[in-house]
């Protein structure tokens, strides 16, 4: 069975809510049913075939071609299957994923993988602010799964992160790991100001020395046994993180945020 391919044939002027086009919703629907689905865009609703041409039939393997940054909520609450986005994705990409895999060849907007529960999200380009974060007003961000960003990430990466792994090959903006409750964020590039702001627990794993707030205390240089196991788990990824030459187990450890309960840590490669 060939992948179910949605090719964007027009450039919508307003943002489009793509949340109906997820594997579990489309499973068992005929092409006619799928084309008749309605997508909210601004104050209008479009039939799917007004925006996309449709090919293929495998609803567990969805491909979105010619994608652009106005397509929001791609893969919302995905519960199994794969979604491949060729081009950019809008805001709320993979919001609340429960299971399955989303890959984006371009960039993604705000709140990518916000409140993700499990599964895998890969963005080849950059992502906007609030990657893996909690929605505004909510207390729990990402709760599980893996996010891989090959480019840079915006501000507030992993805000309220609860569990799971965020890997960023490029740089991360200000407030990376803010208000983390647990989980791991690894950044190969540089990090911005207010790293780990108000983090309670969790690990920020860095390749480059950050600009740390005064509320992070130096705990010294250490060889940590869990790091080889963590790096070993990256081996299956299509990423720089899978390269054995980037791994390390010797780190400078900073505890913080001491303005919170101080059980988080920033580990910097030595």
């Amino acid at each position, binding site marked *: 069975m060939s992948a179910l391919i949605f090719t964007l044939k027009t450039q919508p002027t307003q943002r489009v809510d793509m949340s109906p086009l997820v594997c579990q919703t489309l499973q068992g629907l005929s092409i006619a049913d799928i084309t008749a689905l309605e997508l909210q865009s601004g104050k209008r609703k479009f039939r799917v075939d007004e925006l996309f041409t449709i090919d293929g039939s495998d609803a567990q393997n969805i491909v979105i071609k010619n994608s652009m940054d106005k397509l929001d909520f791609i893969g919302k609450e995905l519960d199994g299957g794969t979604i491949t986005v060729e081009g950019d994705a809008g805001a709320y990409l993979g919001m609340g994923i429960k299971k399955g895999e989303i890959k984006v060849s371009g960039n993604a907007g705000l709140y990518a993988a916000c409140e993700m529960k499990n599964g895998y999200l890969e963005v080849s380009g950059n992502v906007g602010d609030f990657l893996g974060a909690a929605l505004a007003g909510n207390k729990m961000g990402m709760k*599980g799964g893996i996010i891989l960003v090959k480019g840079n990430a915006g501000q507030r990466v992993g805000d309220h992160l609860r*569990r799971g792994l965020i890997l960023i090959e490029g740089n991360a903006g200000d407030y990376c790991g803010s208000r983390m409750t*647990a989980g*791991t964020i690894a950044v190969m590039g540089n990090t911005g100001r207010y790293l780990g702001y108000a983090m309670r*627990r969790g*690990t920020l794993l860095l390749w480059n020395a950050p600009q740390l707030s005064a509320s992070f205390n130096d705990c010294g240089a*250490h*060889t*940590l*046994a*869990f790091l*080889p*196991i*963590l790096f*070993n*788990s990256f081996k299956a990824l299509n990423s720089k993180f899978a390269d054995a030459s980037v791994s390390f187990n010797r780190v400078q450890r900073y505890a913080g945020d001491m303005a919170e309960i101080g*059980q988080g*840590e920033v580990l910097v490669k030595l």
Partner: protein
Amino acid sequence: MIINGVTIDATFAEAFPMKATRAIITAQNEKWAMIAAQTMTGFATSVIACGCEAGIERVLNPDETPDGRAGVSVLIFAMGGKGLAKQLETRAGQCVLTAPTTALFAGIDSDIQIPLGKNLRYFGDGFQIAKKITGKRYWRIPVMDGEFLTEATTGQVSAVGGGNFLVLAKSQPQALAACEAAIEAMRKMPNVIMPFPGGVVRSGSKVGSKYKTLGASTNDAFCPTLKGATKTDLSPNIESVMEIVIDGLTKEDIDNAMRVGIQAVCDLGAAEGIERISAGNYGGKLGPFHFHLQEIMA
């Protein structure tokens, strides 16, 4: 059946169901992994008074361990899951957590999980850190030499305990030499341990005693000094009997271990003073697993 002049008795060893788990101990080097493993599996010869039977299964190469360091795998057997969990946790806490540079990992998969470091984490007094990596939960417990890393749980599986055979020889040194040869061969087999000191038991027991408080007592039928004083199983020329007890994850594992062990004894043969191979059983009443010596060696 006679192999190389050694008579294989037409009898069987009788074994019983147990619960078992495997843990992997790693350390900075093999020396310290082995020290921790030996300590963890100490005083674990028999469930009768030790609470469990435990032993070192084998040394692991760094490429076989989760953290890429030298390691040792240990097997622990107990009569029930509850007892196994208690013994595992106590021994992990007192013998591995305390041993310098060690880390502790699950060594067996199973739907039934029992705590490995899950409760040891409280030693961290709030400073412990959980990490879930590829579906497995680890605990990082701060300790004075750095950090003790332990997997939260390990698997519990059904297993078999009490496989055995007896080596009957013309002298004590010859019995011991034969048992040493058997143990050397059996230690190369996977999924089994020989829990007694050096793998050899010199005080095999029978069920019951003339003393009401004792559930087991010396196996007088195989005691050479009692040949004229009890209903003996020994011929006049047998001066020493030693036993090898085997616990294994499956009946087949014990079959294989017994085969190589008995073969190693028979390779020494009558020329080295080995007279007979026998086995301990209780008339089939103790356990459902029967290891017929002649079938194993056929």
